[in-house]
């Protein structure tokens, strides 16, 4: 069995290309392991994030192995496998900012917020903060947000917590910034806490494949392979269900 899988390639530490041209990061490694377990011969293709889902919907991929949040529109169009990363969204603000991140706290402040174009953060902000509360600025990728945040063109960013923690807050240039406003789950609020997370997705017709993928992933979490791979790239836990493997190396 041959599978063509799509991946973003520019989302460290989950996905990136090293200097010799190999795709590495947490997602590709997990995907390779998964393929081994379901006995598939996988080719992982790197493509712009924006092009991934439409390409799969047009039948150009058999699945996407980049974390994707289960928004209602997406759930309608694609099958979501079990969550592989719980990477909630959060706000990144300047250390000295004094507003509270509620609708009331930010209204009328004229704050400029960075959002990823086409990402699920956009409808979420609209729903919980209103369309005109912030001045919204759209970016193609988080690197551009970071450059603009450091350049002083932005007041705050609303994006994935883990990435921003690793890429900004933990680094020297992030000394003036902090996370704020708590964790926000962008998916269906009906999903219970424990099952929340971003998943790989597959075409609607591939139910059988998704089952096999889920089985493989569950096994990987259970035998701590998941955690081993995760630790190579991400220092903090990314799933609640990996708690049992906390001490594995």
């Amino acid at each position, binding site marked *: 069995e041959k599978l063509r899988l799509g991946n973003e390639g520019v989302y460290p530490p989950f996905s990136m290309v090293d200097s010799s041209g190999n795709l590495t990061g947490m997602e590709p490694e997990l995907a390779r392991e998964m393929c081994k377990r379901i006995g598939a011969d996988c080719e992982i293709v790197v493509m712009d994030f924006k092009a991934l889902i439409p390409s799969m919907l047009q039948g150009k991929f058999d699945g996407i192995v980049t974390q994707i949040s289960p928004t209602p529109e997406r759930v309608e169009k694609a099958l979501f496998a079990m969550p592989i990363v719980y990477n909630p969204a959060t706000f990144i603000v300047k250390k000295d900012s004094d507003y509270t991140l509620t609708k009331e706290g930010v209204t009328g402040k004229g704050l400029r917020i960075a959002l990823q174009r086409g990402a699920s953060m956009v409808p979420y902000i609209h729903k919980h903060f209103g369309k005109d509360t912030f001045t919204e600025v759209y970016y193609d990728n988080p690197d551009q947000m970071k450059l603009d945040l450091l*350049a002083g063109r932005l007041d705050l960013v609303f994006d994935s917590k883990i990435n921003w923690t690793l890429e900004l807050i933990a680094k020297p240039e992030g000394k003036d910034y902090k996370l704020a406003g708590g964790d926000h789950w962008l998916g269906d609020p009906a999903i219970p806490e424990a099952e929340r997370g971003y998943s790989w997705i597959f075409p609607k017709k591939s139910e059988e494949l998704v089952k096999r993928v889920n089985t493989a992933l569950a096994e990987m979490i259970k035998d701590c392979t998941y955690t081993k791979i995760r630790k190579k790239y991400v220092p903090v836990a990314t799933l609640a269900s990996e708690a049992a493997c906390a001490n594995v190396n």
Partner: protein
Amino acid sequence: MNGLPIDLALAWESLPALFDGLKVTAILTALPLLLGLALAFPICFARMSDRRWLALLAEAFVTFFRGAPLLILLYLVYYGLGQIEALREGPFWILFGSPFGCAIVALSLNHAAYMVEVLRGGLLAVPHGIVEASEALGITRRNIFIWVKMPLAIRYGLKAYQNEVVSFIKGTAIVSVVTITDLTAVANSIFEQTYDPFTPILCAAAFYWAFVNIIRLGFGLWGRWLNRHNAEDVAADAGVPGRGAALRRTSDLGQVTP
């Protein structure tokens, strides 16, 4: 999926957003067209100057801004200049701090580079004999430029100018890299929300098509007016194959560009 499923309801719903996008596109067209043109004149004079270093400098400008893809040019101006601490503190930050400012700077530079060549082509196409005749009439250089060379250069270069403007409008479709929500960006975000491969893109295409063709129409009228001296209504005034017409035609050629 069968046929070309255009979702009329979605198209209708998206119209207001697309219109907003079109407004942004129009602004991003109008300002750089003016600024770029203004910038093109001095650079064109430099490019045609007898002073070697000046000409070389102008040529370098043209080579650079014509060669660098707009996508990358915009990126460098917007994100690159933002990294310069001194600039952030300085007065120009009003301009470079905003994506619009950056986009207008980058687009203007790009347009200027192309316009230098359009202008130069038009000026070179002015028959030397006509300039000589003006000199023989004792008209000063400055007046020759204003009353003879420029009016003719505009006529000879009009087609090339139109092409540059049209291609420029279409080129603005990439400003979304610097966070500007223009017509293309609107269509893209609708596409990314709905994953409908036709409706938003075709709608945007229709908007562009209309915009571009209104511009072309305008140029057509302008050209007709400018070239009224060559109009062929008083037909069979035979014998004279209209030197002007012939010259104009050859100078058009080669300029039929995107």
